[in-house]
């Protein structure tokens, strides 16, 4: 499919998703309490920033943003026996 065909097909769907995000952020801001500094609110902000990037692996980058870190040598921390 051509890019313009995909845009035509998905325009309303993406518009609706952006609107949902906007409404969710408004809802949080209208509610009582301050989310400044809340780690999950910061993560959402970074995720939104990723959408505006020009990379072609945005979905993968968003997944990694919301992922726990992998640490080399974890088996030593768990004191796991090596297997063969």
């Amino acid at each position, binding site marked *: 499919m051509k890019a313009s065909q995909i845009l035509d097909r998905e325009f309303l769907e993406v518009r609706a998703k952006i609107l949902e995000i906007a409404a969710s952020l408004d809802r949080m801001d209208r509610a009582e309490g301050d989310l400044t500094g809340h780690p999950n609110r910061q993560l959402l902000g970074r995720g939104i920033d990723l959408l505006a990037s020009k990379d072609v692996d945005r*979905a993968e980058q968003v*997944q990694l943003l919301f992922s*726990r*870190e992998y*640490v080399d040598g974890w088996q030593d921390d768990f004191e796991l026996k090596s*297997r*063969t």
Partner: protein
Amino acid sequence: MYYIDPHIHMVSRTTDDYQTLARMGCIAMSEPAFWAGFDRGSVDGFRDYFRQLTEVEPARAAQYGIQHFTWLCINAKEAENVELSREVMKMIPEFLDCANVLGIGEIGLNKNTRNESIVFQEHVELAIEHNQQVLIHTPHLADKYQGTRMILDMLGGYSGLDRSRVLVDHVEEHTVRDVIDAGYWAGMTLYPVTKCTPARAVDIIEQMGPDRLCVNSAGDWGPSKPTAVPDLIMEMRRRGHSEGMIHQVVFGNPYQFFSQSQHFSFEMPTPETRVFDNL
């Protein structure tokens, strides 16, 4: 189009769902052992569950012309209890000769803990000892990337493990490449909220190519859609993919992977045996 759902938890579904799946072209499925929504208290609870998977569900599926296969294990969530897990693993060989058992699964990690890792390794060793295929669950959401890497680390330690007989399931954009590049099969689960949508799964197929990639619905007791594989077929058709490529993903690939199991005695429906005539 006929298709195989390689990962669906039919113990959680109604008989009406079997009928709907058959009407939509599902002719075979495999059901990995998993968490029932509560922790079972004894090895006998698992023995009864394995009877359900090897006796009850195949008979229920057969009423609608669907061939039912299964995988046995204690799932990652209950694997936190190492003592119970070892009792269950000791009992599993009683069922490995059942006609519909394809292998050990869905083993894996849930919260990526030490106990889960120990039980995962012991399951892999059980599979190697009994020459069984392996189906692997990867964790959800924030735990998926770390857990998948840990699983690949552990699998990599087994020189006696044939990677072409192992499927790592629930891959997404950030885990699929590591799994495929290491020589394993990968499964994409079409599931609301926590896993992949049909559109994203097709994106991954387009980027990775269709080889060694399977798609499934996981249809279980949570919010899920047992007819998600036909949704993927529709999405691939809307994007103009060939019928041959769609067939490879939804039928050829699971058929090829399962064919490595001694108990995969699959037979295509014939005009005499098929239950529904709409295909």
